[in-house]
Each structure stands twice: as C-alpha cells, then as structure tokens.
C-alpha cells in the first residue's frame, strides 16, 4: 500500500495551500521577526544624543568634544547651561549630559605629569532605558578616560562580533523559535483538526495505519520549514550580515535535526489534546515561553536563578540556539557542537517514542 502515501502527502499539501492566510503568515513571520530583531529591537548603543556643560571651553574640553562628535554612536547636541540639564533630559532632546569641571584642563595636565589627581567629569544619563544607559555610560567612560589619564589604558577587542551587533545574537534565537512555531504548532493543530472535525474517525476506520497518515502530514510541514530555514539563513547572511564563517552545511544539518524534534513535539501535543484551541495554547504557552525565557535567546542562561538554569537543560531550543550561535557567529564547524547534536538527537528520539506510544488508533 505504498502507493497511497503520496496521495496523503498531496491531500495534506492541498490543505496547506488552500489555507492561504496561514501560509502567508508562516512565510512572513520569519522575515518580520528577522527585520524586527535585526533593525528595530536592538540592544546596541546607537545614536546617543549628548550635550556638554563646560564653564570654559578650554582646549582640553574642545578636544574631548571633538572626539565625541566624531564617534558614530554619539551625536553632539551642543553646549548647554548647567541649569538646563534637567529640562533637556526630561524633554528627551538628549540622552546624556557630560559635565566638565571648571579646572578640567589643569587637572588633566597635572595627571599627565604624574600628580595623583583625577580630572573630574560628571555623566548624567537618562536611565529610563537601563540597557542604553548602561552601555552608553560604559562607552563614554571608556572614551573619555583616554583623554584624562594615560596611566591605565585598556585595549578592548571584541571577538566574533566586534561591533556587538545584537542581530547576530537574535538570529539563532529566532530560528529556535520559528521552527517550533511552524513545525510543532502547525502539525499539532492540523492533526487535532482532524479529531475535531470528525475526519479522524473515518481515518481510523480504514486499513491504513493512522501513524502513516500522521507522517504524511508532517512532510509538507517539513518542506515548508526547510523553505523558512533557507529564508532565514539568506536574510541573516545578506540582510543582517551575519558571517556564518563556519559554513552553512553544518547549520543546515543541525537545523534539520531540530525540525524533526519540533515535528515530534507537535505530534506529542496532538496526542494529548482534543481541540485545536488547546493544541494552540499548549504550543504557545508551554513551548514558546520556555524558548523565550529559558533558551538563552533573550537572557543569558548564566544569569538565571539556579532552578531555572537546571530547567533550561530540558528546553531543546537551548541546545539548538547555543550550537547555532557557535556555528554562525564564532564560525565553528559542527564537530565542535557534537554534544548539542547528541542531546538534540536523544530528545528527538525520546519525544517521538513517547508520542508514538501515546498515539492511539482508537478513540479513547
């Protein structure tokens, strides 16, 4: 009865193709998320508006301001009076104000001669966005310290992601998220839809083993996911400029494994739910939340409380995102992340076994 497998796949593809809206959403979500995280949502320090308060515009101060305005991350908004600091910050015209002490030049000169006095600079930063404020402060300190003291100079080199582009960080996260969305959610919903509409009853009362129908269901979703995967990789490479120096083949193979895992998860969800709504909720709440919170996509796992760190071990996306990051950004070959591969493989097999065991060819 091998011949009819093709017709099952055909039927399933028809379902998907006829549901144009869902299809469009699935294809557009990756593009949207990539652009969103790549450009709009960013934790980079970019375009910080800075004003300067200086009692006298001495050479030293002019020199510091010049360096500031040459830096692409800062925009120099001009000199202001000390009385206006609060007003300017509140109005949002500036994000930070640098206040130079009146004897700035003298102190700088003394410091360069080895006298233990420190030039005084005050940074007043709008901390309503903590991330921006923190990063801006650190960066301004770093930049200005070069001018004020030659005693200790740091030379910092950022490896792998020298511009600290947050897109690099998000691309693996988005991939971890999107495949769960496409594979797990859509397969589970499409299987449960057959239960809900009563067609499952007819399918079960046929000589074909239902599991065969289920696998036929997965194939179109697998193909869609591959298209989505290709889209993401292309966008990452050419739109966001993620290096992927480790080679695309490794990333692709690992992603295929992750796709299988997502499909198995979808099957598992479909075996424990009876309505599309429940399948959707489980996929969204039980699977998406851990991916967002516990996978290292948004927050570094090392920063989580110990309990959640332990919990993150069972979130498949954690291992996937970690591995993709290594391959995509650090340019490691797939052999380096073999542990992640093994963990994902074991997870896939386990989930698949559980769901096959739970999948019932009766109604109860």
């Amino acid at each position, binding site marked *: *009865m091998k*011949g*009819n497998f093709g*017709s*099952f796949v055909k*039927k399933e593809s*028809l*379902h998907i193709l*006829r*549901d144009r809206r869902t299809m469009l959403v699935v294809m557009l979500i990756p593009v949207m998320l990539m652009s969103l995280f790549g450009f709009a949502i960013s934790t980079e320090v970019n375009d910080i508006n800075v004003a300067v308060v200086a009692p006298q515009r001495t050479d030293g101060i002019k020199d510091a301001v010049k360096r500031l305005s040459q830096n692409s991350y800062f925009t120099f908004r001009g000199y202001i009076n000390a009385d206006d600091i609060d007003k300017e910050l509140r109005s949002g015209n500036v994000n930070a104000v640098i206040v130079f002490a009146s004897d700035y030049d003298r102190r700088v000169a003394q410091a360069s001669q080895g006298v233990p006095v420190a030039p005084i600079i005050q940074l007043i930063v709008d901390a309503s966005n903590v991330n921006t404020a923190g990063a801006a402060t650190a960066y301004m300190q770093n930049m200005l310290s070069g001018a004020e003291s030659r005693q200790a100079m740091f030379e910092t080199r950022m490896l792998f992601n020298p511009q600290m582009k947050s897109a690099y960080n998000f691309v693996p996260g988005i991939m971890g998220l999107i495949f769960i969305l496409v594979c797990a959610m859509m397969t589970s919903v499409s299987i449960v839809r057959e239960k809900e*509409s*009563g*067609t499952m*009853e*007819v*399918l*079960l*009362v*046929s*000589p*074909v083993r239902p599991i065969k129908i289920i696998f036929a269901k997965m194939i179109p979703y697998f193909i869609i996911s591959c298209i989505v995967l290709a889209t993401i990789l292309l966008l990452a490479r050419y739109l966001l400029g993620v290096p992927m120096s480790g080679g695309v083949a490794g990333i692709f193979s690992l992603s295929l494994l992750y796709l299988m895992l997502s499909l198995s998860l979808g099957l598992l969800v479909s075996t424990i739910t009876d309505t599309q709504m429940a399948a959707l909720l489980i996929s969204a709440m039980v699977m998406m939340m851990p991916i967002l919170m516990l996978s290292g996509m948004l927050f570094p796992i090392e920063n989580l409380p110990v309990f959640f760190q332990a919990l993150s071990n069972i979130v498949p996306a954690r291992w996937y995102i970690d591995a993709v990051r290594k391959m995509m950004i650090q340019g490691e070959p797939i052999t380096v992340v073999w542990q992640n591969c093994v963990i994902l493989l074991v997870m896939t097999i386990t989930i698949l076994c559980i769901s096959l065991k739970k999948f019932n060819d*009766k*109604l*109860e």
Partner: protein
Amino acid sequence: MNAIEIHNLSKSYGKVHALKDVSFEVKQGELFGLIGPDGAGKSTLFRLLTTLIAPDSGSASLNGLDIVKDYRSIRSCVGYMPGRFSLYPDLTVEENLQFFAALFGVTVEESYELVAPIYRQIEPFRKRRAGKLSGGMKQKLALSCALIHRPKVLLLDEPTTGVDAVSRSEFWEMLAGLKKHGITILVSTPYMDEASRCDRIALCNEGQILGIDTPNGIVQGFDSPLYGIKARNMFALLETARNADGVTDCYPFGEWHHIVTDGSFNPDMFIREFERIDGLEITPVEPTIEDMFIKLMKR
C-alpha cells in the same frame, strides 16, 4: 453466517451507561435500522462496531470478525459514515473521493460502477469544495466516500439528520439500490417515519433495545385500539383525555392527540361525556412505529 452479531454488548462512559446489554443480529444483505432518539446509544454502538472504542463487556462480530480481536481486518471491510459531516471541507468533491479511495488502497475507477448512481448526482460539482455543498449533496458525497472500497458492511450513523425531506427520501432510495449489491447496511435515525424503509428495525432508548422486528411486525405488535382526538383547546384536552375512563395513555401526535385505550373504551361514549368541549373530534387511527415506540418506552 449473520453479517453482524452482537451479544450482550455494554459500554459506559464513567457513570453513564451508554449501552446496556444489547444483543441482536443483522442478516447478510439486510437493511437494518436503529431507531431511537438522541442519547439512545446509537452512536456508541457504531463506534463499537467500527472498533473505534472497546466494549466493557459482551462481544460482537462483523462478517465473523471479532470487534476486539480482529479489529484491523474489520477496518478494511467496513464502510463507515459518522454522524457529523466528516469530509474535508477545503478539498473538492473529486479530491475527497480520490483521497478516500487512496485511503483504502483502491482507485475511483475500480469502484465507479458501485458509487455511480450516487456520485453521478454530485459529479457536475466535482470541482466544488465539499464545504460549499448543500446538506443533501454532502450526504451523497459522504456515502460515495464510504462506499468507494466496496465494503461488505456499511455502517451509517444518522445519515439523514439535518438533511431536507427530499434529499432524505432520495438517500433512502440510494440505500435500497445498494442492497442489490449484497451490502449489509446498518443505519440509525431519530426519524420514526424513516423506519418503514428498513427491512428490520430495532427500537432503542437509553442504551437498551426495546423491540426488534420488521416495521410491519412492530406496528402489528401494537394491540390496543388507538384513536386520534382533536379540539379547539388541545392543551386542556390532553389533561382531560388522560383522566378519561378506558384511556391508558394520551400524547400529542402532530395535529392530533393519540389516545391509547383498553377494551372498555367506547369512542361514542367519549364524545358524549365530553360534548361540552369545543370542537371535539375523535377518529380511530392506525398505529405507527412512533406509537409503538412511545408504548415500549413507557412500559
């Protein structure tokens, strides 16, 4: 060998006894009707016979195959049409039929001559999505799909529910046509008027079989004289008649009330006794299956 044999079959869902100790047989090639209201256990019986659920106790067989032991083999020789519309609304008429053919490992061409009398009626719409068909056409498509693999036993769970009167009548004619192919058909319906279309019927209620016979046999089993009564105030009449001498039961029946009587009842006496009632009429009526059902149900 009987096509369907059911012995003391019981099934409960938690505390609800959906089916209580049901036994009956359906002969080869018979059109057998299960007549009963919602909640009579008809669907449960179908699900048991289609091996979708397992019985709590008792046994049943289709074509000699046990519903528990041989459930895999049963699934290839049975055609099943569940109570609700269970085709793919987003696939066309043609695609649905082709899919169900593939499901059973046959082609539409192989079985075309069996389904043709039914399918031909919807063939002009073969490019239309199944969800956009009318109720009657959906029914025909569902029946075509259930027949596509030439099943020996056809199980139809309330196929005419929610279908207009003309389509219902057509549907029963189609079933009669299928009998010529020797297909055994077990069909359930809540409509008593459809019972006469069956070779034999089983009246069921609350998980039990109340009686099994040919539709004529069932009607003949109604041995009390039955009258129809009518008056301007039907509601008051119901109460009055129930308390009248010689009346064992009175219930609304369409435009009339039917009164079941014992030997002592005399219609002339009844008219005379209640002549004060405005517009009172009484006429003897032939009992129907519904009358029998009500009688059996109240027993």
